[in-house]
C-alpha cells in the first residue's frame, strides 16, 4: 500500500512535469507565432524597442527566445520549475500573484464542483436506480430518453435560458414572498454574488450538474443491472432477505464502485462546463480565469493555474485509486 502510494506519487510527479513542459511549449509557441503579449500592451502605438523590452521584462517574457519561432525556450522553463520548487508560482502579466488569483478563484469553482457532484450523485443514483429496477419498462425507457435529451442540450442553452428568462421573475417573486435577503431569493439571484458565494452557486451548479448527470444515470443503470443479474444477488435473495435490503446492501453497494471511480475522473472534464457556467453566471472561478489567461497569452498564469489544477487532478486520481481499493476489497495495491 505504502509502496503503491509512493509509486503513484512518483508517476504523478512525472505526469506533472510532462504537463508543465507541454503547456510551456504550447504557450511559448503561441507567443512566438502570435506575437509577444507585450506588444498588445501598446495597442495601436508602435513602441520603441526600449519600451517594448521594458514591458516584456515586466511580463516575464523578456527572454529573446520568445521572439524566435520554434525555440522551445528551455531556459525560462527551467527557471520556472526552479521557482515552483521554492513555492513561487509567479505572477500574472499585471503582477498579481498566481497563488492569489487561484486562492480567490478556486473556492468558487470548487463550490460549483461540489454542487455539480452532488447533483450528479443525486440524480444519477435516483434515476439510474429506478431505471435499473424497472428495466425494460416504460419508466426505464422514459429515464433513458430523458438522459439523452439532457445530454443533447448544450449547457449554455440551459444556462442562458435560466439567466435571461427564468431568473428575474423567480428572483422577483422570491424577494416579494420571502424578503430580499432570504435564502430563497438569493438562490435565484441572476448572477453570482461574492457575498453569498455558496448559495448563489447552487442553481448554476445544478444546471451544470444536470448535463453531466445524463452519463451518470446510464452508468448507474448499467452498473446496477450488472449486479441485478449477478449470482451474489441471487444468493442474497435465497437467504430470504427483503428486496429493499438486497438492493441497498448488495446492488447499490456493489455498483458504487464504478460510480465512485467515475465521479473522480470527471474532475478535469467538468472544467469545460465550469468555463461556460462561470462565464454565463458571472462566477469568478478557475475556468474563467484560465480562459482569459490563455487568450492573453499569460504564460505564467496559464502554466501556474494548470500546474495547480494538474496537482489537484493527479491527487484526485490517486485518491480514486485508493477509494477503489477501499470499496473493493479484492484490490490490494502493492
Amino acid at each position, binding site marked *: 500500500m505504502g509502496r503503491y502510494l509512493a509509486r503513484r506519487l512518483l508517476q504523478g510527479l512525472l505526469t506533472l512535469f510532462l504537463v508543465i513542459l507541454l503547456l510551456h511549449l504550447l504557450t511559448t509557441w503561441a507567443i512566438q507565432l502570435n506575437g509577444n503579449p507585450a506588444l498588445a*500592451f501598446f*495597442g495601436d502605438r508602435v513602441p520603441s524597442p526600449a519600451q517594448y*523590452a521594458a514591458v516584456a521584462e515586466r511580463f516575464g517574457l523578456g527572454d529573446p527566445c520568445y521572439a524566435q519561432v520554434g525555440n522551445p525556450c528551455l531556459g525560462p522553463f527551467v527557471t520556472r520549475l526552479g521557482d515552483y520548487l521554492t513555492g513561487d508560482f509567479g505572477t*500574472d502579466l*499585471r503582477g498579481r500573484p498566481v497563488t492569489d*488569483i487561484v486562492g480567490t478563484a478556486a473556492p468558487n469553482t470548487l463550490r460549483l464542483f461540489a454542487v455539480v457532484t452532488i447533483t450528479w450523485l443525486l440524480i444519477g443514483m435516483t434515476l439510474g436506480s429506478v431505471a435499473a429496477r424497472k428495466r425494460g419498462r416504460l419508466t426505464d425507457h422514459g429515464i433513458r430518453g430523458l438522459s439523452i435529451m439532457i445530454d443533447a442540450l448544450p449547457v449554455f442553452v440551459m444556462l442562458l435560458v435560466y439567466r435571461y428568462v427564468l431568473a428575474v421573475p423567480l428572483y422577483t417573486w422570491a424577494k416579494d414572498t420571502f424578503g430580499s435577503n432570504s435564502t430563497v431569493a438569493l438562490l435565484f439571484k441572476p448572477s453570482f454574488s461574492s457575498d453569498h458565494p455558496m448559495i448563489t452557486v447552487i442553481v448554476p451548479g445544478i444546471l451544470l450538474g444536470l448535463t453531466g448527470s445524463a452519463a451518470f444515470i446510464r452508468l448507474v443503470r448499467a452498473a446496477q443491472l450488472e449486479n441485478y443479474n449477478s449470482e451474489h444477488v441471487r444468493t442474497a435473495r435465497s437467504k430470504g432477505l427483503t428486496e429493499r435490503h438486497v438492493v441497498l446492501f448488495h446492488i447499490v453497494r456493489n455498483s458504487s464502485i464504478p460510480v465512485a471511480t467515475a465521479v473522480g475522473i470527471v474532475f478535469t472534464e467538468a472544467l469545460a462546463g465550469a468555463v461556460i457556467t462561470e462565464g454565463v453566471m458571472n462566477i469568478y472561478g478557475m475556468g474563467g480565469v484560465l480562459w482569459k489567461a490563455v487568450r492573453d497569452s499569460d504564460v505564467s498564469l496559464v502554466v501556474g493555474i494548470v500546474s495547480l489544477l494538474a496537482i489537484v487532478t493527479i491527487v484526485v486520481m490517486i485518491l480514486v485509486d485508493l477509494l477503489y481499493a477501499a470499496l473493493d476489497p479484492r484490490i490490494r495495491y502493492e
Partner: protein
Amino acid sequence: GSGSDDSGTSGTSAAGPAGSGQSGAGSGAAPAGSGAGAPAGGNDAEVSDAVVKLVLNQDVDTLLPMDSNVGDNIGVLDVIYDGLVRYDPKTSKPYNYVAQDIATKDNKVWTIKIKDGLTFQNGEPVDAAAFARSWNYSAYGPNAVANNYFFERIDGYEPMQGEYEEDDAGKVTVTKEPTAKELSGLKIVDPLTLEVTLTAPFAGFSTMLGYTGFFPVAKACIDDVSGCAVKPIGNGPFQVDQWDQGQKLTASRWDGYTLPESPAFTGIEWTEYAGKSSWPDFQAGDIDVSAPPPALWAQANADPDLSSRKVESPGAALTYIGFPLYKGKPYDNIEFRKAISMAIDRKTIIEKILPGQAVPATSWVVPDGVPGGKAGTCEWCRFDPAAAKAALAKAGGWPAGQTLTIHLGKDETSEQYFKAIGDSIKLNLGIDYKLDPTPDFFDRRSSRGFTGIFRNNWFPDYPLNENYLAPVYGGGDAKKGNKNLGFYDAKFEQAIKAGDAAPNLDEAVVKYADAEKILAADFPTVPVSFSQNVAFYSERLDNVVLDPFSGSVELRLLKIKQ
C-alpha cells in the same frame, strides 16, 4: 498624443457603457480657472445614505493611475483621485480642480500652482512633490507602465528610457541603461508650485492634465506599488474599502475630502462582469446602471418604463474599413473603395446587429463633441447598391474566383458586425468574402501583413479633430505611404502642418477640417459607424449623465432620489 485602437478582446457581449481608450482634453483656449459650466457638485447636505451599484464590464487589473488606461478603471479612479483639472461633461472643456492655477507664456514652460491644504487619504500632502513623484515613476521606462507615453512631451523623457537594440531575429539587447530616473523638465519651485518644461511648445498640454495618468500618488504608494494598485491611496472624494479582484470593488466616502465636487451618496459598489451582461441583475434590481445585450435591445426599448430611464449620448469612437493600399490592385483604386463603401447598408446593419450602440458614420471626425467635427463630409458613405456596382465596374471588377479577406481582431461582436458588412458586400457586389479574426491584429497591421480589407477602430485621446486625422493618415512618406495604411497625400500633410502652425486652436480646427476634405476626396478608408453611449438606470437614480468620452456615468453628478 496618439489615439488608441481597441482590438476588442473583451467578452461576448458589448453590453453596457463599454469602450476602451483614454479620455484626454485638449482645448487650446486658456483653460485655467474657467469653471464655466462647473457642475453642481454634491455638497454634504444632500448626501443620501445609499450605496450605488455599478458594474465593471472590462477586466480591471490595476488601480494604479499611471497604469490605468481602460474605460473602467478610469471610471473608478475618477472618484478615488482628483487631477489638476477636470472636464466639463457637456463641452469637454477643462477647468482647474486640484490646480489653483496653470500658466504658460510660450506653451513650452508651464507653471502649475496647487491648491493649499490638500492631502492624500493617508494624510500625506498633495503637493508639487507628489505630482513630480508620480510623473517620474510613470516616465521611467523600466517601470513599464501603460501611461508612460504621455510623458514623452516633457523634457528629459528620453534618457529615462535607456537604449536597446533589436537585431533581425527580434533579439533585443540593452545597449544603454536609462541614464536618468527623473524628468529633467520637472522642477519643484516651491512645495505647491511645479514647473514643467516641454520639449516643444504644445498648447494642449494643460488639457491633458486631467487624464488619469497625471494623477498624483502618495509616497506610500510608490513604496508599495503593488499594494497601491489594489488598494489605492487617493486624494479624491472616495476611498477604496476593498477590492476582491475579479469579483467586487467597494468604495465609500472619505471624510477628509475638502474640495467641492463629491458624489451625493455614501458608497459605491462595482461588480465585475468581465464582458458578461449585467442586464438580468439590472432587471432584478441588483444593479443601478446597465444596458441590454443586442438581443434584448428591442424588448427594452419597447418597455416604456425602461426606456424612460435611458440616457444616450454620442460616443467618440469611429469604426472604419481600411484597405491595404500597399498591396496595389484593386485596393489602390478609389472606385473600388467607393464600391465597397456604397455597398454597405450601414443603417440596417447597425439596427440589427448593434442596436443602440452605434450610429452610421458620414465623416471621419465625430460630428458632435469634437471641435471641427462635421457630419456628411463623406460623399460615398451612403448606401447605394446601383452606384456601388457601377463603381466596381469602373474599377475593373473583382478578380473572378477570388475571395475578399476581412481582417479583424478577435471579438465576437465585431465578428458579427463585419460578417453583416461582408454579407452586404457579397450581396451587392457579388464578391465572396471570408473573415479572418486574428489575435495579433496590430502586429500584422503595422507590419503590413494584411491581404484584404480590415476593420479599424479609432478612439481619440483628446477632443480635437486633429486627433482623428494626423495620427491615422499622416506620417507617411511619398513612396511607401504611412505605416498602417500605406496612405500618403502631400496636400493632406500640408493641411495638417498648417493646422499645427496655426496661432490658436480655433484657426487650427479649420485647417484640420481642410485636411478632412482632402481625405474625403482621396477616400483611403471607409467610415462605417460612430459609437453611441447608452445606459439604462434604476428608478432611484437621478441626474444620470454620461461622460462623452468614456461613456461611463458621471458619478459626481449622480443623484439618488429620496
